[in-house]
């Protein structure tokens, strides 16, 4: 689908950290008994584990995150999401489960640079300094919901709802502005 566009189409700002919208990303919400064998099997077939509480596991370009005691979020390529949703739905048809493609309900951002943490410090009450790699934190950025995790040594990935992408980008841009670094 050539005409599919992300909320901000890759908008980027340079400050003491670089903040960018990442463009289209695939996301699938899976609601299910996370202890069920069927789930483990269905995910295994896709090469994915069932993550432990609050963990986000990345395997070959896809990530799977624990969102709540009965909810996972699978992150993949945007164009892969519809088919993957179908496959997982089918694989879980024997379970009480809900698998839905939410790729377009979200916007994803990266905050990159040595001081990336400081941008999050300005926006979320969560203690970013103690957030270990491999853990996803659902929280808020200023007035809207967000989830974030360390996607590599100097990058934080952040997901918000699509409709507020502009607001989130506004916050990130202001917070990362040169001259306002905290330390």
């Amino acid at each position: 689908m050539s005409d599919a566009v992300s909320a901000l189409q890759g908008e980027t700002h340079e400050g003491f950290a670089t903040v960018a919208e990442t463009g289209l990303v695939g996301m699938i919400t899976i609601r299910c008994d996370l202890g069920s064998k069927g789930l483990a099997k269905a995910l295994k077939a896709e090469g994915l584990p069932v993550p432990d509480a609050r963990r986000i596991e990345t395997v070959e370009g896809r990530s799977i995150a624990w969102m709540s005691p009965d909810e996972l979020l699978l992150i993949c390529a945007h164009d892969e999401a519809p088919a993957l949703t179908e496959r997982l739905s089918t694989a879980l048809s024997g379970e009480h489960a809900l698998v839905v493609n939410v790729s377009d309900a979200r916007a994803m951002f990266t905050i990159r640079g040595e001081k990336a943490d400081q941008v999050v410090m300005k926006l979320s009450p969560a203690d970013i300094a103690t957030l270990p790699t491999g853990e996803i934190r659902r929280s808020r950025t200023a007035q809207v919901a967000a989830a974030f995790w360390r996607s590599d040594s100097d990058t934080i990935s952040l997901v918000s709802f699509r409709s507020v992408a502009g607001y989130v980008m506004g916050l990130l841009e202001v917070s990362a502005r040169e001259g306002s670094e905290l330390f």
Partner: protein
Amino acid sequence: MLTLTCPCCGVTAEETEFAPGGEAHLKRFGPGSSDDDFEGYLFARKNPKGVHFERWRHAYGCGKWFLAARDTNTLEVFATYKAQTSEPPADVIAKIKAKRPDWEGYK
């Protein structure tokens, strides 16, 4: 500005990441119930100055509802626990008793 620990995901977070939901362990009365019971269910609140059992939702986190035992006068949080129970669990009661020997117990 309270801090609470969500028993569903284990995150300790500040009040703004949660949404309060009023008194816990209310018993729903539906069609066929008496006027008094129904009124009690919707309106009569214990609203104690002291130990209170209440509902919270981890709104900006895992999205789950949970319950908290909290002192409305000191704001001490005795415990948080899963919402799927119709009265406070024994260990929560014991914890409160230990800290508030004068407390007359869950009524």
